[in-house]
């Protein structure tokens, strides 16, 4: 085969080994097939192309040329892997750089900006609240399920009435968590009281779950004598030391690097607890998101980053926020294990957070959870979202994709809840919420002192 001598630059041995690596020989056999069959020839670098063209030009049967061929497979990548793993001559096939060994390739391939399919979303209940067949989930007891459901209803009613209170001028500002009740309650239910919460601002349900009373919520909104925050911040900026719920601050994402620091402290103290820090889809664009995740990964801190991807950051939809496949794919960029869940499925959220917590605490690592959901309410009382989105879209999510109804169906189908209990619960919560709003209007001047 004197013709082979014309191949330049490399020794024949190297050349052949290299070509076999890339499945050149295998793919050359399939030249008769469509050109897209081999990834090895993709991008067409000079030596491959030249050889292929040269071989194609030969008059006799191509198959007879390759008497030394060893692979018939056309799957180049698989060949390459198996070849590499069995090869003893590592130096030739991998490069040593700070950060570890990498295998090299002479094919110039860019990693695609997106994968063929989006990362799938974990769910347990279908849209009607029925358990999906053969699904993997963390079972909840009747007691826990009823408590979760009650708290979701609590949150719904508190939101509705407090929102109205703002409209009536009783409080200066409010924002609801409508549509995100499952995220709020189910994520809180999967944690222990020792786990520390660093919220963004749309997670009052977590506080509600932990026992913050309706009166305590109202007091903060009024900024009155009984407000733990001493009247210093706008409504909804709750904070409660006894519930391990750090005070909310308006700047977005600032809590994320702080979460890494708090988690590092827990790690140093050998506590069997983790930090859960919440963020919205918009907040992931902030520099602090990058800082927080990177620090948590490097420090191996037990923190769960819970992203509520509700599709909107005030009027900015996700298409205007990022061009990645949501937030879940960003985890890998930091070396963080991630999952995407259906945020309107209470059981899925509960299961995912339980699993994440176990990994965070036992393996001392951060976890990223992206919960897909929809912001049914306006951004806040200062916003009218019909100005930038369709009313029927809002109505659809409010009714057909309602997380509370969905969970209710599941709880009721287990025989753990009834319509009568529903009515009783709703009326009693309503009463309590209204009573809390009658509360103290007296402001105590804690302007300068902290005690």
């Amino acid at each position, binding site marked *: 085969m004197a013709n082979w001598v014309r191949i330049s630059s490399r020794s024949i041995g190297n050349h052949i080994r290299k070509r076999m690596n890339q499945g050149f020989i295998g793919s050359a056999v399939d030249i008769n097939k469509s050109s897209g069959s081999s990834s090895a020839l993709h991008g067409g670098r000079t030596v491959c192309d030249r050889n292929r063209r040269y071989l194609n030009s030969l008059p006799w049967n191509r198959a007879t040329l390759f008497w030394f061929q060893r692979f018939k497979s056309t799957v180049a990548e698989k060949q390459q892997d198996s070849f590499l793993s069995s090869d003893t001559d590592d130096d030739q096939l991998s490069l040593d750089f700070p950060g570890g060994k990498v295998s090299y390739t002479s094919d110039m391939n860019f990693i695609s900006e997106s994968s063929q399919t989006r990362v799938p979303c974990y769910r347990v209940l279908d849209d009607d609240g029925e358990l999906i067949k053969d699904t993997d989930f963390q079972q909840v007891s009747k007691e826990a399920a009823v408590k979760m459901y009650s708290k979701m209803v609590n949150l719904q009613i508190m939101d509705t009435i407090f929102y109205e209170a703002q409209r009536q001028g009783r409080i200066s500002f409010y924002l609801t968590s409508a549509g995100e009740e499952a995220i709020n309650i189910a994520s809180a239910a999967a944690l222990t009281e020792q786990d520390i919460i660093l919220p963004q601002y749309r997670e009052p349900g977590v506080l509600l779950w932990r026992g913050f009373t309706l009166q305590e919520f109202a007091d903060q909104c009024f900024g009155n004598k009984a*407000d*733990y*925050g*001493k009247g*210093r*911040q706008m409504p909804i*900026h709750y*904070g*409660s*030391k006894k519930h391990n719920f*750090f*005070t909310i*601050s308006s*700047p977005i994402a*600032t809590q*994320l*690097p*702080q*979460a*890494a*620091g*708090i*988690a*590092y*402290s*827990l790690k*140093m103290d050998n506590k069997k607890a983790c930090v859960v820090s919440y963020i919205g889809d918009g907040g992931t664009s902030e*520099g*602090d998101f*990058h*800082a*927080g995740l*990177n*620090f948590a990964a*490097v*420090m191996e801190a037990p923190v769960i980053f819970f992203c509520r991807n509700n599709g909107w950051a005030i009027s900015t939809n996700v298409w205007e926020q990022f061009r990645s496949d949501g937030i879940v794919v960003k985890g890998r960029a930091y070396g963080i294990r991630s999952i995407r869940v259906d945020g309107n499925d209470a059981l899925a959220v509960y299961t995912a957070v339980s699993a994440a917590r176990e990994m965070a605490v036992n393996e001392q690592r951060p976890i990223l959870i992206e919960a897909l959901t929809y912001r049914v309410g306006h951004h806040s009382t200062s916003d009218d979202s019909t100005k930038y989105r369709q009313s029927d879209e809002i109505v659809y999510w409010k009714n057909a994709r309602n997380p509370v109804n969905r969970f209710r169906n599941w709880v009721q189908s287990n025989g753990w809840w009834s319509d009568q209990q529903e009515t009783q619960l709703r009326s009693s919560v309503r009463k309590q919420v209204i009573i809390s709003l009658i509360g103290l209007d007296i402001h105590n001047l*804690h302007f300068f002192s*902290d*005690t």
Partner: protein
Amino acid sequence: MFRVKYVFLQFVCLLQEKKEREREMALRNIMGKRVGIGLMGSRALSTATCDVESGSAKSINLYSAINQALHVALETDPRAFVFGEDVSFGGVFRCTTGLADRFGKARVFNTPLCEQGIVGFGIGLAAMGNRAIAEIQFADYIYPAFDQIVNEAAKFRYRSGNQFNCGGLTIRAPYGAVGHGGHYHSQSPEAFFCHVPGIKVVIPRSPRQAKGLLLSCIRDPNPVVFFEPKWLYRLAVEEVPEHDYMLPLSEAEVIRQGSDITLVGWGAQLSIMEQACIEAEKDGISCELIDLKTLIPWDKETVEASVRKTGRVLISHEAPVTGGFGAEISASIVECCFLRLEAPVARVCGLDTPFPLVFEPFYMPTKNKILDAIKATVNY
């Protein structure tokens, strides 16, 4: 003939100026030369009571004094941590030498290159009751952390109604001119932080001050930004007690007594001001020199008492004059001592330009500029 004489005189003047500049530059040269600033370190003329007990003291430079303070801090509090870029091997200015070896990588560690992350992480650590000592490699790079410092650290306790706090946070950063730093290795950003209720800003003038002040900052129940004059890291050498001691915050110190004019400054600038004071003395002007030490909350009483005595005040800082902290001191003094003042409040500061490289000697508030201003104020 006349023209030749004129040119000759010009040449002589230029030579003199060049010598002056060279002298000043020599003092600023931190390339290995240990020029003792004995006068600045001397406490002989200080009127403040000294908290430092007499014990064994060693002659060390600024970065060693800071290193000692950090060793003491980590030794005395098992929940103290030191972190930042490159602190593990000892730091780019050697302030953290030996800490990782002695206290372990869990307590002394490198962070990713991200100032907002460093401070945010520090806030979190401090919020859990730890002493988080964060290092920002140069004060010029502190701005990404500005949001975390201003919106979070400074308001952490207040907004929570004292349920939470990050008082254990101390942020250290080298600041100030160094002779060749240019825009991004010479800045003095203290004024930005002096505008923020909720944090403290402290700047030491010498090794002995630095050790005591840093330990006070670390142990203070408020988040503190501690700017270290990098020019003095190697240049300033002083007797520093080897034991654990603290110097009080928010107490200014009169380091030179005088009766004709009050000079107020902080950090490295004080040594320049001191030289100006000495020269002014030759002209019969008695200068009182005050080291502010803590910029916020600053010791108004001491400065006011001195101004009531002298009737004149001159403030000097490296940072650009417009909006610098000198403006705050000036406004406060005018408010309290307007009728006592014999002359307008003088400010001799950096020019309103980004900190230049080759023009540094012209940008800086030099001894001669200060001297001119002293004379102008006294002769007003």
